[in-house]
């Protein structure tokens, strides 16, 4: 049986000034559609939602012609770049905003974990908030009472149950919020990137719980995440969105592969002649980013990496620092480098950063860097990806029997073995 069905669903937003329209546009639209019975003059065909390309119309389709259906008990991962329409899709499904075209049908109650802890009132106690949050999701008080112990147990907040939530740590409220949604047994659970918060132990617990929810109770789950590893672990089916269009639909593995081959293209070393076009903002511009093998001619697991980054700083006399993050193709953060660059004496002009990743550190695969320039260890001057993805080839020269090892890293730590006798 089908649990959810999307039929030609589209959602249009107006760019620029806030609102679906000015009074005059509203009046014009109303005149054209209701009185003259014409097509909506502001719905232009053919405009897709691509952030990087400036459209000709003020109106963009955040989603267009989306049709798919989800069987009961299926766990579906929704994948796509930022701005591809993933969150819009979930918002339409959870009835928060209405579609512009098409029809959505579903069966059962929907609870969304769009952001856990929504509706938590800081002054109310944990217990009161559980009831409040549960009833927002459409549960009755009796239902909540019967689940209360499980929720408190899972969240691990039993000692603080009668303490106002404002005294909770962020982690505690996140755990509580997740627990409420996960235990209240809606027929359809919508999850948007919640697992990026909380500590590692909780993330594991949360994924485990979602696994349970999905596989044992037969509930339907829609899951949005940038973390391909957890998507692959949880979901059976995948939907790939690109610029508001449904690009691919199928098994989760195929969908993730499709996404990764298309979105992560290995790029050459980057150099921007025109600083205006370089990644950055009015405070910081990254002019070039070059990766070279430490040894040999090409990047590989064994070659190591020598990275050179040239950037221009426009802010004088600040304490400048840099954070460099490395992500793998599944968007898992592999490591973070941090360096204090100046002490209140930054100069306007070009700086060059260099760093090495030693051989036999990273496993084969595609990687990309993200960079963050900070001010006084606190404020963020610029934060964004370096439009640069590179691939490390595997090498098999360590041992003849080596044919690729799983894992994020591929270290070459020596293992000693000696025979101790009979």
């Amino acid at each position, binding site marked *: *049986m*089908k649990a959810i*069905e999307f039929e030609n669903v589209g959602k249009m*937003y107006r760019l620029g000034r*806030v*609102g*679906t329209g000015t*009074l005059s546009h509203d009046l014009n639209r109303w005149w054209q559609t209701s009185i003259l019975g014409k097509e909506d003059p502001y719905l232009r065909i053919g405009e897709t939602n691509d952030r990087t390309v400036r459209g000709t119309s003020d109106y963009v389709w955040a989603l267009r012609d989306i049709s798919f259906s989800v069987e009961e008990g299926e766990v579906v991962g929704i994948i796509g770049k930022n701005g591809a329409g993933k969150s819009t899709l979930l*918002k*339409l*499904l*959870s*009835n*928060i*905003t*209405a*579609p*512009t*075209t*098409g*029809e*959505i*049908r*579903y*069966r*059962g*109650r*929907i609870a*969304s974990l*769009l*952001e856990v802890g*929504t*509706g938590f*009132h800081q*002054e*109310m106690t944990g217990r*009161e908030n559980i*009831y*409040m949050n549960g*009833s*927002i*999701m*459409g*549960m*009755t*008080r009796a239902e909540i009472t019967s689940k209360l112990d499980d929720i408190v147990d899972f969240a691990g907040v039993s000692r603080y149950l009668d303490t*106002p939530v404002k005294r909770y740590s962020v982690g505690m409220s996140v755990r509580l919020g997740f627990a409420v949604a996960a235990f209240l047994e809606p027929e359809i659970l919508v999850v948007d990137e919640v697992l990026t918060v909380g500590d590692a132990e909780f993330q594991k617990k949360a994924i485990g719980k979602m696994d349970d929810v999905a596989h044992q109770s037969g509930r339907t789950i829609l899951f949005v995440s940038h973390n391909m590893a957890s998507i692959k672990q949880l979901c059976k089916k995948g939907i790939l969105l690109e610029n508001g269009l449904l690009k691919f639909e199928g098994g989760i593995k195929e969908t993730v592969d499709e996404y990764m081959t298309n979105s992560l293209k290995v790029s050459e070393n980057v150099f921007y002649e025109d600083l205006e076009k370089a990644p950055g903002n009015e405070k910081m511009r990254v002019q070039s980013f070059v990766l070279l093998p430490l040894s040999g001619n090409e990047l590989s697991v064994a070659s190591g990496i020598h990275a050179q980054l040239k950037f221009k700083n426009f802010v004088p006399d600040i304490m400048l620092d840099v954070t460099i993050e490395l992500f793998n193709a599944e968007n898992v953060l592999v490591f973070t480098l941090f360096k204090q660059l100046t002490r209140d004496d930054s100069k306007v002009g070009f700086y060059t950063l260099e760093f090495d990743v030693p051989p036999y550190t990273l496993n084969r695969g595609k990687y990309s860097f993200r960079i963050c320039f900070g001010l006084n260890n606190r404020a963020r001057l610029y934060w964004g990806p370096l439009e640069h993805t590179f691939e490390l080839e595997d090498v098999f020269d360590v041992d003849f029997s080596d044919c690729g090892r799983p894992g994020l890293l591929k270290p070459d730590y020596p293992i000693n073995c000696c025979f101790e006798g009979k």
Partner: protein
Amino acid sequence: MKEEKQEWTRVITPKRHLLDVDIKSVWRYRDLIYMSVRRDIVVQYKQTILGPLWYLMQPLLTTIMFMFVFGGIANISTDGMPQPLFYMAGLLLWNYYSSCFNACSDIFGANAVVFGKVYFPRLVVPISSVISNLLKMLIQLGLFVAFYVYYAIKGAPICVNWSLLLFPFLVVMTALHAMSWGLIVSSLTTKYKDLKFLITFAVQLLMYATPIVYPLSAAPEKYRWILELNPLTPILEAFKYSCMGCGSLSWGGLLYSFVFMTVSLVLGIIVFSRQERTFMDTV
């Protein structure tokens, strides 16, 4: 076909019928109403010493102020009633009206975060704020009754009459007047924010266009029709008449007020439930 037989819980379409208002699901979410009312009451006075006593301070201080300004300086008639009683009677319903109206008219603004994350019938919010304000009003009613008994013992010329039975009806009308206009205003302010400033001002003015600090009979004949156009006038007059015997009980006026209320309530709910579907895109 199997698909044909399938029953959907909900079908979301771009446009809904004008009168397609989800009253049934409001009932399903009655526990949420209960919880929100509880929250409103509990949260307001957490970490205060006087707690709900604050509900009494406001009408008490306003009454004293009115006695000073309108009774003392401006010397406006109170129809022979003791001043505190007269002002308090007016303020009781007026405060209920204005607090309901203010709460309802900022629904989308105040709840944007929650509305952006979860769906529930949005009508739950105005309904629960009307109820929690009702509780507040009942506490203030206690104060009024205390003063009333005091003056009755002292022998003030006040007399209760049968029309006091209308009181619950008057309260409900006050609440629905406030809610319906609150809904209309809240729907409009999501798009055109300048209305918000206008409205705060308008509510202040409306108080003076309602017989609270003066009896309707004291208004000049020439301008009385303006006051009578105000749908709150007959309600306040009827309340003062029923508990003190001053003012007037006008069935015609009450009928007008009732019709006015019904029309604006229907309009308010329609406008509101249309707005709730797309407001996230405009806020």
